[in-house]
Every structure is written in structure tokens, then in C-alpha cells.
């Protein structure tokens, strides 16, 4: 059953809306303070949130912003309830909501809006189901966008070394935890250093891409490596940690010692006119990957052929 959380006064029309939704097999709860609702949302995520703007306007906006800005929560549909006379002054760029409902709306309208919100959420299917991050279509679109930009960017290709033996030793579900951990560290570092300019996509498996302004790319790579190497220890069994390696079988079925996963980053700087399409970026990344993979442990490598290429371009 889908859970709808109403953040509104506990009085009509909201109680009537709740009743109508319940009659259509939604599970509905009303919270009339943001404090109560916030804790509920974080610890017991609803499937849809309806927020009455007039309840605590400032706090409502902050809460919506915080939720929508978080990658793992951004897919939670949020509907804002406002007074019709406020419509002309609404700046929708300030409110990260999916739709709005006017205060005087009928029960039928509310029901339709809620159903539509769910249908719409399902249509946005590019996202990776494990991490919730944008997939290949969005990554491609984003790279095409920045190769035409006037600013300098870096595209970082991230993947794990020794991920397969880790999966073999501990099973897929722990492997998935590690992928999610990597995704989360990456997302938060990109957010921290690049803010809204940054982008993180999940190609699939243990392959990720991040896109940030060039000047923060190395810092993010260094921090990613540091944090990953620290956190991965929480996913290695104590015996193996003490021993310093995993014991698993190699492709020939022979028992062998393997290091636990480390992270590799290949950074491709991008400036205007350097590349003309997506494939060229991927080709440079593949060359870098070839080198970075030869270095044991977590490392990053940046393509420094910048000046050379520029001169070449002038010739």
C-alpha cells in the first residue's frame, strides 16, 4: 500500500482529503508540525508528501529543499498546497516541488493529482535502481552539454579494483552495499565542492562518472580515495582485515589472496573545442584507465596533455 504523508493542520479540508485517499487504498497520515513530520519522513519514508504551505511557510520551504536536494530522497514526489491568490507571486524555481494543489480543491482533484504524481515518477526511469543516480542517457546528455561550454570542466571516470573477488568472497548483497557507499561518498563530495554545478551518474556495476568544474576535480578525487579506503574496512570481515587480504578462488579455481577493493579515478579535463563528441572523451578516459589500473591501491590520474593539445590545435 502506498503511503501518503500530509503535512497540514488536522482539520477540513485536509481530513476530508485524507479520507478520500484512504478510500482509494492509500495509507494516509496527517502531521501538523514539521518537527514530527521530519523525523517520520527520514526514518519511515512515505511514497508521497503533501505539504501545506501556509502551515509554516519558511520551514516548509527549507524542508522541501533539503529533501529534494538529497539524491536518495529526490525521487519522493512532493505536492504543495497553496492559496489560489498566492499563485501569481510563486517563484517555482525556489520550490522544488512536483506539482501544486489549490487550497479549495475538490477531493476528486486531489486524488487525481496524487495518482498522476505516481505515474509521472515511474516514467523517469533512466535512474539506476541500486543508487538512484542518473544513467547513461543523462550522462551522455550532460557530457555533450559541457564540451560546448565556455568554462573548464573535468569528467571523472570512477571504478573499483578487485571488486569481483570481493563479491565472490562475501556475496552480491555486500557488493551492492559497497556500490551504494561509493555512490554516496561521491555524491556528497561533489555536492560539497561543486554544489549545483556538479553531476554524478552511474554507468552501471562499479562504474561511475562525475562532472565538476576543473579546479575542484583533483580535490574531490583525493577525498574520494581517502574516504573510500577508510570506509571499505567496515565491509571487510575482521579476520580478513587482520590477515590483510581476502581468500578466494581465481579463474582457474585456485585459492589465492586478494586485496579488498580500492578505487581508481581517471580525470579528463575539458575545455572549449577540445572534444566534439562524447566518444572522444570516453576514448581519452580509456587510455588513462589503462595506466591507472596498473598502479596498485586507490589512485587517480589526470590527463595533463593540455598545453600540447592546445598548440596542436593552433597548428
Amino acid at each position, binding site marked *: 500500500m502506498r503511503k501518503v504523508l500530509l503535512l497540514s493542520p488536522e482539520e477540513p479540508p485536509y481530513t476530508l482529503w485524507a479520507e478520500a485517499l484512504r478510500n482509494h487504498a492509500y495509507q494516509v497520515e496527517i502531521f501538523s508540525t*514539521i518537527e514530527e513530520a521530519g523525523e517520520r519522513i527520514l526514518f519511515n519514508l512515505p511514497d508521497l508528501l503533501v505539504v501545506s504551505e501556509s502551515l509554516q511557510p519558511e520551514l516548509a520551504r527549507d524542508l522541501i529543499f533539503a529533501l529534494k536536494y538529497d539524491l536518495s530522497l529526490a525521487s519522493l514526489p512532493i505536492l504543495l498546497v497553496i492559496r489560489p491568490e498566492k499563485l501569481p507571486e510563486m517563484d517555482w524555481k525556489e520550490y522544488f516541488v512536483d506539482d501544486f494543489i489549490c487550497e479549495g480543491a475538490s477531493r476528486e482533484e486531489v486524488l487525481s493529482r496524487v495518482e498522476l504524481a505516481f505515474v509521472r515518477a515511474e516514467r523517469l526511469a533512466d535512474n539506476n535502481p541500486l543508487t538512484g543516480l542518473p544513467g547513461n542517457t543523462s550522462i551522455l546528455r550532460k557530457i555533450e552539454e559541457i564540451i560546448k561550454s565556455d568554462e573548464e570542466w573535468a569528467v571523472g571516470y570512477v571504478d573499483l579494483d578487485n571488486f569481483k573477488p570481493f563479491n565472490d568472497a562475501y556475496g552480491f548483497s555486500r557488493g551492492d552495499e559497497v556500490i*551504494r557507499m561509493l555512490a554516496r561518498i561521491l555524491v*556528497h563530495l561533489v555536492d560539497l565542492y561543486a554544489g549545483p554545478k556538479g553531476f554524478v551518474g552511474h554507468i552501471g556495476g562499479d562504474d561511475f562518472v562525475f562532472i565538476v568544474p576543473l579546479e575542484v576535480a583533483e580535490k574531490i578525487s583525493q577525498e574520494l580515495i581517502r574516504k573510500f579506503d577508510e570506509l571499505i574496512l567496515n*565491509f571487510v570481515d575482521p579476520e580478513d582485515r587482520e590477515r590483510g587480504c581476502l581468500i578466494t578462488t581465481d579463474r582457474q579455481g585456485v585459492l589465492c589472496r586478494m586485496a579488498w577493493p580500492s578505487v581508481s579515478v581517471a580525470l579528463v579535463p575539458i575545455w572549449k573545442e577540445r572534444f566534439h563528441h562524447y566518444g572522444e572523451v570516453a576514448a581519452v578516459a580509456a587510455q588513462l584507465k589503462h595506466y591507472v589500473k596498473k598502479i596498485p591501491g586507490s589512485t587517480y590520474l589526470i590527463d595533463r596533455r593540455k598545453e600540447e593539445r592546445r598548440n596542436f590545435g593552433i597548428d
Partner: protein
Amino acid sequence: MIDDKRREIKKKLRGLQGLPTLPPIVAKLTQMIGDETVSAPQIAAVIERDQVLTSKVLRLVNSAFYGFPRRISTVSNAIVLLGLNVIRTLVLTASIFEMMQSRDIGLWEHSLGVAMVSGVLARELRLENPEEVATAGLLHDLGKVVERASLFEDYTRIQKIVQDQKISWREAEKEILHMDHAEIGGYLLNRWNLPERLIDPVSWHHEVSGAKKFPVETAVVQMADLLVRARGFGYGGDPWVPEPEDLVLERVPLDRSRLEKLWPELEGRFYELRFFIQEMREALSA
């Protein structure tokens, strides 16, 4: 054995919605979060001084939704995984104790002291992760916060018999609740999917033989608890300093001379913590 009181308490614990904390800590964090020049590590440093917020952050990151059950045991790692926006929401919506007096801060002060001493002892004994042991120390008396917040009637009765009969808080708890704060805290941390590395020391800090997986860490927390009580820092519910268990002396092989050498460092750290506590006290009485 059927024990209605225990059953009643466990039922209450299962229904527990969220623990309130000290109003000044939430106020301070709210202000920090609104300030763009404040960094994530600075925010982590304040959250790490509050047992309730620390338990919330760890509960969240170890929840099924975030996908790291029983893995993450420190606030700084939790923040990297959750991101500042989630932390912001958590703080923005944190509930606070409505009626809080300056003397109630004693328990926070005690817990902070135990966290600090646990961390220092863990480092001295070269344990693998001192930060984690400090977190266990911070959370060791979470059960007492639960008593204050959700079992208030029993809490006042415990308070009264501690005073009248001159017995320890834990003995009084056993009389009134048929269980103690260590069990309450451990029970909750377990329900919240926190790592065993934290649950063991919280559950067994008064009976270290019960700690099967993390015996040394658990002994460190008991030792820290005693040292903080002996030093006279904060208030753990009663004024007594119990004897260490024999097992603790065995597992924490710090003799008098080694402790004496450590003491100046500990005193310096107590002094720093007192500033923070003083700030909280003043904010409360203002």
C-alpha cells in the same frame, strides 16, 4: 519467567518515536547549519557531543533505507554517507526536552567525559578504532535519557529511592523497572541496527563478562565511566564510584603509573569539555 514490568517497558521502547535532546545543542546546530562558512567536520564535531543526535545519525545511516545495516559506527563516516542535507533535516526537525533545567545537563556532561576518556584509553591501548570506542562511551548511558524522556514516572521514583535509600541508580532501576539503563540502551541500539561494536559496550558496561565480541572495548568503557565519576565530572544519576570488575582490570592493563602519566592529558581535555558544557548551561538559563 513472566515479568509484566519488563514487558511493558519493552513495549514502550518499541513504540518510541524519537528521543528529545538538549535545546541549546539544537539551537547551536541550527545556527551553524544556516551559516555557509561552517564546514561538515565542524558540524560533525558538535553532533559528536550529543548522545541523542549521535544515536539518531547512526540509526539513520544504518537503517534499511540507507543501506548500511550494522556497519557505520562514527558520526564523521555517517555524515559522508548521508550528506549535509539529510543532517540539516535531522537537526531542523529534532525534538527537544520541553522542561530542562541546568542540572539535567549533568548526564550529558558525564557522557561526554566518558566518551573522551574511552577514546584516550583506547588509543593508549592501541585498539583498532579509538573513535569508535569514544562513540560507545558517548552512548553508554543512553538508557538514562530514555528513562528521563519516556518513562518519566519511573524516572522520578528511581530518583527518589536513590536519594532515600542511598543506593546506586542501577540498583534502583532494577527495583523499579526490573531492568537497567544498559539493557535499555542496548535494546534500542540493537533495534536501530547499530553495529555490534557499539551495542556490546553499551549493553555490558556494568557486567563486562557479557560482552562476547568486543570484550576489551566494553572494559574500556567501564573503566572510563569509573574514572569520570572518580574525577567528579558531570552527574550519572548517583554520587557513588563503584569498584571496577576484576575482568576490567585484566582487560585494561593500565596500572597506576601509566594512568598517572595519562592524567595531564585527560585533565586538559576535561577542561576543554567544560567550556562547551558551560556554554550549554548558560544558554539554558538565559
